[in-house]
C-alpha cells in the first residue's frame, strides 16, 4: 500500500499557515448537519469534542469512565512545553521543533512536529483563558521550568498536577458544549468496533457498561483519542483501565498500526516491590531538575544496601557514582528519558542496584536542599546559618516545588524522601507508536481520525518530557478542528446514516458474538492472570533492551499464550449487566495481539533508536546506534486477519529542515 502522509508543500515554517488558509471549509449551516463521533475524553478527545462542538458540528462523545474528567491525561505531573521564550533563554518555535525531532531520534514526521511547535504557544494562551492555574511568579507572570533533553526553560506547570489542571480545562470546555447541546456525552460507554460503510468510517459499536447493552452509533466520521497501549506490559504507569481496544479494533478493520515497538520507559518511577502489584507510580521528570541520580560505586555497598545492612545516606560522597553526570556531562541528570532509563538498567545489570530486587537506583535531593537552603539563608540575610537551619530552609523550598510528589512517594513507600534519597527505577510510561495518520491526522481509513497518544506522528522513537500534554491539546484544539474539514467538506450532501444499515447490524453481531464467546468459554484462569503473564513476556523480551533471539522467542510465547487464553479464560457474570471482568477480558485479548505485533515490529527494526534499543546495534560505548540508511521510515502494520502474518507498509521519512545527526547528550 502506498502511504501518503499528505504533507503540504513549501518551506517547513510556512506549511501549516498556508495549508490552513487554503483548506476546504464547511459552512456553519452545514456543520449542524454533520455528525462527529469522538471516542475518548482525555486531553486530545476532550479538547477535540469541545472545539468541534464550538464550531457547530453535532458531536457524540464517548468515554468508558464514569466521567470525562477521569481520563488518564489527568495523571500527567510535570508540565507542558511551549515555545513562548518568556525566559529569554533563546527558545523559539524552531528550537522546540528541533529538540522534539532530535529527542525522537529522527523517527517522526518533520512537518507534523513543526506544526506542533507552532501551535504550542496558542495552547498556553487557551488554557490560561480557560482558567488553568499555572504556576506564577511574584510579578504575576507565568513561571517555567526545565525538562529532560532540552537546554531552555519552556515547561509550564501547575505544581505536580499539570495534566489534571489541563484536563479539567478541557473537561470544562466540554461541559460547556454539553450544556449548549452541541455535544452529547456518553459516559460508561466502551467502543468495541468501528463501522465502515463503503470503506469510510461511519460509526461505532459501543457497550453501555452499566446496562451491558451493545449499542450502535452513526456519524459522518469517527475520531479516536483513546490513548496509548502501555498496559500491554501489565505493569506500567498507565491507569488500570488504559487499553488498546479502540485502536486495535480499528486495526482489525483495516487501519494501520505504526511503529508499535516504540515504547517509552520512564526513568523515574517507584520500583516494583511485590508480585501482587497492580501498577507502577511515576515520579515526575521535573524531579531530575534538582535530584541527582546515583548508585554506589562499590558492589559490596550495593549488596549491603539490598540486604538492609546499610542505607543510602551511609555511603560517603566519594563512593557514589553519579553515572548520568559522569557519562553525559552536557545534559547531566536531564538527559532524555530513554537515555536515563537505559543507563539505570546498565548500572543495575552490573550489580549496583539498591533495592532487594536489584532493580533500583537513587534520586537524591540532599545537594538541592543544601543549595536552596544556602540561597534562601542568603536572601534572608542570615549570617553563618547552622547546617540544620540550611536544611530546614532548603526543605521548604523543595517542598514548594515538589511537595505533592514527595508526599505521594512517602505514602507509597513509607519513607521520607526529604531525609532519605528516593529509590527509583524505569517503568513503561508512554507509547510513541499508534495508529498511522497522515498530516490531517486521518488514518488510512477515510473518515477515521486518531489524535493524541493514540496516533504515532509526533514523537518518533522517544518522547521528550512535557510533550504529551502539548501534543494532545495541539491535536484536539488546534489541528483537528481544521483538518477534519478536509474530509467533511465532501460529505455535506451525505445524509445522516441509519444504524439499521446492514453494516451496523453485522458489526453489532460480531461484537456480541465475541463477548458471548468469552462468557461461554468457562475456563479456569482470570483475564488478569493472562495479562500479568503477557506483561512479563513483554518486559523481559521487548522492554528496555531487545535482541532478535529474544523477540522471536517472545512472539512464540505470546502466540502460545493467546491459544491458552482462548481455551482457558474464565469470565464471571453475563453480558447484560455491569461486568468489568468482561470488559477486561476483551481488552486483554486485544493486548495479546498488540503485544505480538510489537515484538514483530521490534524484530523487524534492526537498529537502535530512542526507546527502541536493539542489542545488535550499539556503539562500542553502549550508546544506541541508528541505521538511517535502512530504517529511516515509519513501519505501518496492517493486520485484519490475525490467522495470517501482519503486513508491513513503509512511509519513508524525509528530513528537509533538519539534518540527520547522531543524537548526543554528552
Amino acid at each position: 500500500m502506498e502511504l501518503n502522509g499528505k504533507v503540504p508543500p513549501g518551506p517547513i515554517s510556512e506549511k501549516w499557515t498556508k495549508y490552513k488558509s487554503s483548506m476546504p471549509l464547511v459552512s456553519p449551516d452545514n456543520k449542524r448537519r454533520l455528525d462527529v463521533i469522538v471516542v475518548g475524553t482525555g486531553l486530545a478527545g476532550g479538547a477535540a469534542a469541545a472545539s468541534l462542538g464550538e464550531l457547530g458540528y453535532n458531536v457524540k462523545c464517548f468515554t468508558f469512565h464514569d466521567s470525562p474528567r477521569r481520563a488518564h491525561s489527568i495523571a500527567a505531573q510535570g508540565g507542558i512545553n511551549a515555545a513562548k521564550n518568556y525566559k529569554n533563554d533563546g527558545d523559539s518555535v524552531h528550537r522546540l521543533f528541533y529538540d522534539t525531532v532530535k529527542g525522537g531520534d529522527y523517527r517522526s514526521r518533520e512537518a507534523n512536529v513543526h506544526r506542533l511547535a507552532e501551535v504550542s504557544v496558542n495552547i498556553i494562551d487557551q488554557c490560561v483563558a480557560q482558567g488553568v492555574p499555572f504556576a506564577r511568579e511574584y510579578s504575576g507572570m507565568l513561571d517555567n521550568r526545565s525538562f529532560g533533553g532540552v537546554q531552555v526553560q519552556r515547561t509550564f506547570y501547575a505544581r505536580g498536577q499539570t495534566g489534571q489542571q489541563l484536563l479539567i480545562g478541557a473537561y470544562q470546555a466540554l461541559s460547556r458544549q454539553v450544556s449548549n447541546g452541541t455535544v452529547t456525552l456518553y459516559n460508561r460507554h466502551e467502543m468495541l468496533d468501528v463501522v465502515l460503510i463503503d470503506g469510510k468510517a461511519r460509526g461505532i459499536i459501543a457497550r453501555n457498561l452499566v446496562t451491558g447493552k451493545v449499542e450502535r452509533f452513526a456519524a459522518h466520521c469517527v475520531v479516536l483519542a483513546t490513548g496509548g497501549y502501555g498496559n500491554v506490559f501489565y505493569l506500567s504507569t498507565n491507569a488500570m483501565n488504559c487499553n488498546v481496544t479502540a485502536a486495535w479494533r480499528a486495526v482489525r478493520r483495516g487501519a494501520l498500526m505504526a511503529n508499535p515497538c516504540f515504547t517509552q520507559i520512564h526513568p523515574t518511577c517507584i520500583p516494583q516491590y511485590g508480585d501482587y502489584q497492580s501498577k507502577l507510580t511515576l515520579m515526575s521528570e521535573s524531579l531530575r531538575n534538582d535530584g541527582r541520580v546515583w548508585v554506589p560505586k562499590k558492589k559490596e555497598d550495593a549488596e549491603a544496601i539490598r540486604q538492609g545492612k546499610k542505607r543510602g545516606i551511609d555511603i560517603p560522597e566519594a563512593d557514589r557514582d553519579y553515572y548520568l553526570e559522569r557519562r553525559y556531562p552536557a545534559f547531566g541528570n536531564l538527559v532524555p528519558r530513554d537515555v536515563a532509563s537505559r543507563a539505570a538498567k546498565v548500572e543495575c545489570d552490573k550489580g549496583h542496584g539498591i533495592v532487594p530486587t536489584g532493580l533500583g537506583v537513587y534520586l537524591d535531593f540532599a545537594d538541592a536542599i543544601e543549595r536552596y537552603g544556602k540561597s534562601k539563608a542568603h536572601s534572608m540575610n542570615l549570617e553563618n546559618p547552622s547546617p540544620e537551619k540550611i536544611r530546614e530552609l532548603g526543605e521548604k523550598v523543595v517542598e514548594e516545588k515538589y511537595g505533592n510528589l514527595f508526599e505521594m512517594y512517602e505514602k507509597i513507600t513509607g519513607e521520607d524522601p526529604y531525609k532519605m534519597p528516593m529509590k527509583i527505577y524505569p517503568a513503561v510510561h508512554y507509547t510513541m507508536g499508534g495508529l498511522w495518520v497522515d498530516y490531517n491526522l486521518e488514518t488510512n481509513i477515510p473518515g477515521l481520525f486518531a489524535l493524541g497518544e493514540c496516533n504515532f506522528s509526533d514523537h518518533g522513537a522517544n518522547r521528550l518530557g512535557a510533550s504529551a500534554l502539548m501534543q494532545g491539546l495541539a491535536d484536539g484544539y488546534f489541528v483537528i478542528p481544521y483538518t477534519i474539514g478536509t474530509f467533511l467538506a465532501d460529505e455535506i450532501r451525505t445524509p445522516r446514516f441509519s444504524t439499521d444499515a446492514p453494516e451496523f447490524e453485522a458489526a453489532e453481531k460480531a461484537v456480541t458474538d465475541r463477548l458471548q464467546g468469552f462468557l461461554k468459554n468457562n475456563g479456569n484462569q482470570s483475564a488478569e492472570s493472562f495479562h500479568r503473564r503477557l506483561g512479563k513476556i513483554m518486559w523481559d523480551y521487548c522492554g528496555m533492551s531487545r535482541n532478535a533471539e529474544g523477540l522471536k522467542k517472545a512472539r512464540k510465547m505470546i502466540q502460545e499464550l493467546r491459544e491458552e487464553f482462548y481455551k482457558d479464560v474464565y469470565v464471571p457474570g453475563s453480558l447484560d449487566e455491569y461486568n468489568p471482568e468482561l470488559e477486561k477480558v476483551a481488552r486483554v485479548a486485544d493486548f495479546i495481539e498488540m503485544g505480538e505485533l510489537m515484538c514483530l515490529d521490534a524484530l523487524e527494526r534492526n537498529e537502535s533508536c530512542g526507546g527502541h534499543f536493539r542489542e545488535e546495534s550499539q556503539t562500542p560505548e553502549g550508546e544506541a546506534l541508528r541505521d538511517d540508511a535502512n530504517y529511516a521510515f515509519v513501519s505501518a502494520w496492517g493486520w485484519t486477519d490475525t490467522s495470517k502474518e501482519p503486513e508491513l507498509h513503509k512511509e519513508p521519512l524525509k528530513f528537509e529542515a533538519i539534518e540527520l545527526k547522531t543524537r548526543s547528550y554528552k
Partner: protein
Amino acid sequence: MKLTLKVWRQKNAKDKGHFETYQVTANEHMSFLEMLDVLNESLISEKKDPVYFDHDCREGICGTCSMVINGQPHGPMQGTTACQLHMRHFKDGNTITIEPFRAKAFPVVKDLVVDRSAFDRIMQAGGYISVDTGQAVDGNSIPIGKETAAKAFDAAACIGCGACVAACPNASAMLFVSAKVSHLGLLPQGKVEAKRRALNMVHQMDEEGFGMCSNVTACEAECPKEISVDNIARLNREYIGAAFTADEK
C-alpha cells in the same frame, strides 16, 4: 496479615443489598485496592462474582476510586484516596467494613460502584469559563498574583471523587461546587461570569438532590485533596451577592 472484610454487595440500583464477609491474606506493602484485587482473584478462581469497585489511576489523582472504609470515605488516612491507602495502616486480625459512597444523588451501580454523573451535570450548569478555542489573548497579558494563582490552584485540586458528599451528614455537595466556583472566581478570567456560575451550579446541585450545608466540616476532614471549607464561605458570598444583584430574575 489476615483480615476479615465486611463488604457491601448489591447487584444493581434496584437490589436491596447486603453485607458479605470474606477472609483475605494481605501484606503491609499492598495498597488497599491491591488487597481487594487479591480477594477478587480468589473469588474468580472459585468462580464467584468478584467485588466490583471503581478505580483507575491508582495514583490518587483521577478521583475514580470511591469507597467508605470503616466509616470513612477513602479510609482512615488524612488527605489520601483509597488507592493510595496502604495496608501498613491496618493490623493483623482487623475487621474492615467496606461500603459504597452513600447518598441519594449517588445511586449504586453495583457493589461499591456508584453513579456520580450528578457531578457532571453540576459542572455543565456553569463550571467553566465561556471561552471558545482560539479566542485567547497572550497568557501573560493579564498578570495573576502568585498567591491568587496558588489559592485558585488549591481549589482546582478537587478530583471530583465525591468523598465530601459521602462524608457529609447532609450529603451536601457544597465543597465540590464551592471548589469550582472558587477556582474560577478567583481568577480574573473567570470573574466575568462568577455570579451566573454560582447561581446555576447551586441550583443544579439542589436539583440533583444533594443536601444543604450546615457547616459540619466533615467534607474538609475527609477530602483527599484537603480542600478548605473557606471555599464554601466564598461560594456563599458569591451566591448571596449574585442572588441580590443579578440582573436576571
